[in-house]
């Protein structure tokens, strides 16, 4: 009984803290492996089985979705893992015969198939681009950390609905075009929400809820992160109307 209580407490902590979630997933890896092997009806032969990564994310989803009304956590997590793996298998069966270009090539190495394909572009250039992207992302992560934000936080506070995303875009477009706001933002490392809300007409509550997301995107668009900006659709900071 007390064991179940300690799991529930752990789940509660993990819901709010990604580090705790990661720790819990590490601790329950034998359980996740067992459930995956049970579904596959074979032992997991290697650590990087794709199904294992799906099962791990399913365990994380179970942490996020769990409430005590759902009974035992481990039972709930097992059900979630199974459902997720069924979902994945169905999806894969629809694409049977079509190999993903992200799939590792059967050359005894972990290089994706994409790297093996004959590409009109220079493969050397491709590799250099990936390195440059990685370096830019590391720089970007360091920049948002200076604002007290982690990339995981940004993902947690990213707008889910299209309407909210659109409102954030309008607010960001307004902030980007207003030098006073940008100066204050970079100087104080705080987003002047009152100014943005009054100028863009977006509700302050919406901006507060997605503050971390807005900081990340505003930084991406202002501090010369060319690769990240190039990946995003251009309409992002033009209010969405020109999309």
């Amino acid at each position: 009984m007390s064991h179940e209580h300690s799991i529930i407490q752990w789940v509660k902590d993990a819901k709010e803290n990604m580090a705790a979630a990661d720790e819990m997933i590490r601790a329950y890896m034998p359980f996740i492996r067992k459930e995956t092997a049970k579904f596959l009806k074979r032992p997991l032969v290697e650590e990087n089985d794709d199904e294992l990564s799906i099962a791990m994310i399913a365990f994380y989803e179970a942490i996020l979705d769990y409430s005590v009304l759902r009974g035992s956590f481990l039972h709930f997590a097992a059900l979630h893992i199974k459902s997720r793996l069924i979902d994945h298998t169905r999806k894969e069966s629809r694409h049977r015969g079509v190999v993903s270009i992200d799939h590792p090539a059967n050359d005894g190495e972990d290089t994706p198939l994409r790297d093996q394909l004959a590409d009109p572009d220079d493969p050397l250039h491709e590799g250099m681009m990936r390195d440059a992207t990685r370096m830019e992302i590391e720089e970007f992560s360091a920049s948002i950390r200076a604002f007290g934000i982690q990339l995981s936080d940004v993902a947690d506070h990213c707008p889910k609905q299209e309407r909210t995303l659109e409102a954030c875009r309008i607010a960001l477009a307004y902030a980007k075009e207003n030098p006073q706001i940008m100066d204050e933002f970079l100087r104080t490392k705080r987003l002047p929400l009152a100014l943005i809300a009054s100028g863009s007409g977006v509700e302050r509550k919406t901006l507060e809820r997605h503050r971390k997301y807005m900081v990340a995107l505003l930084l991406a668009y202002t501090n010369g992160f060319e690769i990240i900006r190039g990946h995003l659709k251009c309409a992002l900071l033009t209010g969405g109307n020109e999309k």
Partner: protein
Amino acid sequence: MKYIVMECHFSYAVLLDEDGKFLKAANRSYQVGQTVYDPVLVGDYHYRHRPPAVRIVGRVIGLLLLILAVFLCIRYCGSDTPSDSSNPAVTTGDLLTEYRAKCIALAHAGIAEDAAIFESVELDEEDGVTVYELDFIANGVEYEYELDAHTGAILQYKSEPID
């Protein structure tokens, strides 16, 4: 839709899609900076957890048993034996139950419960007092008792050997 891998963790990865959404996804051996096309996103599933039929049936049975238990509890609250409920009068108001009346009479007569054969147990009213009239036979002796149905006081009794 293209996604850039922004961050990799043990159990998940953070991706950025072309619409500017940061998303958590399964870390399928990704590397930071990699572009991916078919991620397994957190929360992107379309099934709902439905308990299996066995669990639904189990819950319904459990609920019915609970209702039955509550009903029995209310029905026999204050009663010492549910088996002696043939006469509804014994369980109403603050009268003694038939069983309690029998026990008082047997204790007074010094007879064991299983040695007695009750011929009649009647609830009656005499001079405005509700009484139990009990007739029973034990060890070749016939007993007649009259008890106050409220207090259990023995109002009258007699015993005589059976010829």
